[in-house]
């Protein structure tokens, strides 16, 4: 379904086949199927894809809680916790606090079966895949920027329908690699990536930051990008990316003996005077360190 024509027929949310359900006035869940097109070398779902799930579940809750007002994502933090066991991953969101100008939400990402029940491992529900939180800025209803003027039409359940991915998600965007060591990637702004403001969707920004961080971290270790798994994203959304191309750069952080590595990724809108859109703190570990590791 769409809200005032959002998302358009060919859209990343449709290709991810997301299914959403508002479970109460202040909770919701959104799930997507685990496919090889959204996973990393360790078999886990990309942090950027999970961030997209979280952004959508948060947006669904916020739309209901804040109506008739609207919202923009101000920050989003995602922390991978455990391995993905599929066949679906589901983000379950809930309101932490509704303030006058902001709304804070929390989400757990879990593995679920075909019937929507929690995946069981060794006789008990599997550990969460990820924990996330986000802050939304409240936009008064009179704000004309969004194509979505009201949330009163939100149904209890809906699905983003599309053809499905037929290639890895970064190829579907598509992302152009300019300089791996510098974490320089570029993506054109087009309707496939839009949010309801006709700017780059928040989950896509997370995907770009994840990819830029992985490229830079992997290059610093003589690996290709599949050799690094991003485990944490801390995203501060500063401005919309409307013109494009959106270009990323990464600045590496030093690392200690524990094997974790970090980078600060900036995204800029080249066509809008190189405006700084987003700053993302990225953490990751070599895939070899993560593979099969579980205490």
């Amino acid at each position, binding site marked *: 379904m769409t809200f005032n024509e959002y998302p358009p027929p060919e859209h990343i949310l449709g290709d991810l086949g997301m299914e959403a359900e508002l479970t109460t006035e202040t909770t919701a869940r959104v799930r997507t199927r685990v496919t090889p097109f959204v996973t990393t070398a360790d078999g886990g779902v990309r942090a950027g894809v999970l961030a997209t799930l979280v952004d959508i579940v948060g947006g669904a809750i916020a739309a209901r809680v804040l109506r008739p007002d609207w919202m923009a994502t101000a920050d989003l933090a995602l922390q991978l916790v455990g391995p993905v066991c599929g066949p679906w991953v589901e983000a379950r969101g809930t309101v*932490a*606090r509704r303030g006058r100008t902001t709304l804070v939400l929390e989400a757990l990402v879990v593995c679920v079966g075909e019937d929507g029940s929690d995946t069981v491992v060794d006789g008990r529900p599997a550990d969460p895949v990820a924990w996330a939180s986000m802050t939304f800025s409240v936009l008064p209803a009179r704000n004309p920027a969004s194509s979505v003027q009201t949330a009163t039409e939100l149904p209890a359940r809906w699905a983003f329908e599309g053809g499905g991915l037929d290639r890895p998600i970064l190829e579907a965007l598509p992302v152009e690699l300019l300089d791996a060591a510098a974490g320089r990637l570029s993506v054109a702004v087009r309707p496939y990536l839009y949010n309801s403001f006709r700017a780059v969707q928040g989950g896509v920004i997370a995907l770009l930051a994840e990819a830029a961080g992985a490229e830079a971290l992997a290059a610093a270790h003589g690996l290709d990008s599949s050799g690094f798994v991003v485990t944490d994203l801390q995203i501060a959304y500063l401005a919309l990316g409307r013109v494009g191309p959106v270009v990323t750069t990464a600045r590496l952080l030093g690392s200690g003996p*524990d*094997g974790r590595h970090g980078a600060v990724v900036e995204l800029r809108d080249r066509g809008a005077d190189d405006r700084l859109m987003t700053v993302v703190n990225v953490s990751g570990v070599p895939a070899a360190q993560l593979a099969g590791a579980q205490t």
Partner: protein
Amino acid sequence: MTDGGSPAEAGVGSGADRRHHVSDYFRLERWELPPGDEERPSAFEGRSPLDDHTRGPGGGLRTGGLLTNLDTLGGFTSGLAVLPQWIVTTSLLATVSALDQVGPLRYRADVLRRGRASVVTALEVVDEGAHDRRVAAATMTCAVLDPGAMDLVFERPVSLAMPPPATVPQRPEEFFGIEPGEGAVTRLVLEDRLRNPWGILHGGAVAMLADEAACRAATAYSTAVAGPNGVAAADAVLHYLRPVRVGPVEARCRVLGSRAGRTAVRVQIHDVGSDDRVVTLGSVTVLAV
């Protein structure tokens, strides 16, 4: 909530021993930089030594201490950007990539976005003792508020010297009044020295509590999460939902999972004396060290 600085902290009319304030316990020296361009309208730098009693099992400054310094510096930077209004911290997202800092540490804070209702500031920390290695990065969001009766007058550019070392060093848990509770609960006794100029618990004290509580919870979860030197907090996400006014304060933790030496701990902090309301929500990554 940050203390965000105040005339008293800026050295205007304060004769108190600065080592007894939260923002000075970790001996953060700080100075304002000349205004930059429109994209970065306000900036500060800071520097702190690494005193032995503030080091954690990772070898460097306890992450709660690092977050305290980030909250102090970021709050000041954000507040000066919105004068005559002031700010209150609403979220702090911090990545600490290296725990084995040598010190001293140098800090930089830049306002990235100054809106009508909020300010976003980026922070970065380098380790001077390790060839200026970048050891942490953070973003901090503050809500803009009316300072009410608080008279915010600063001599610009603001500069605060490094507080002197403690004559009788106190461990952070002792200074912050942090005590173990039952199971995955850790408590903080709200003493007056932990309050900021607004009378509420300093955001750095909340961060220190989150650090200690998450490490205790991870250790209780499984001995397998610890390394030869135990555990230490690293990355942290803190959403300051409401001010802490009454106390005592309780951090209630849930270990979400553990993998490859990283344990994810959800931390929810309550003001017990204020109808047990939730004041902070976040997560801490605890590492085997």
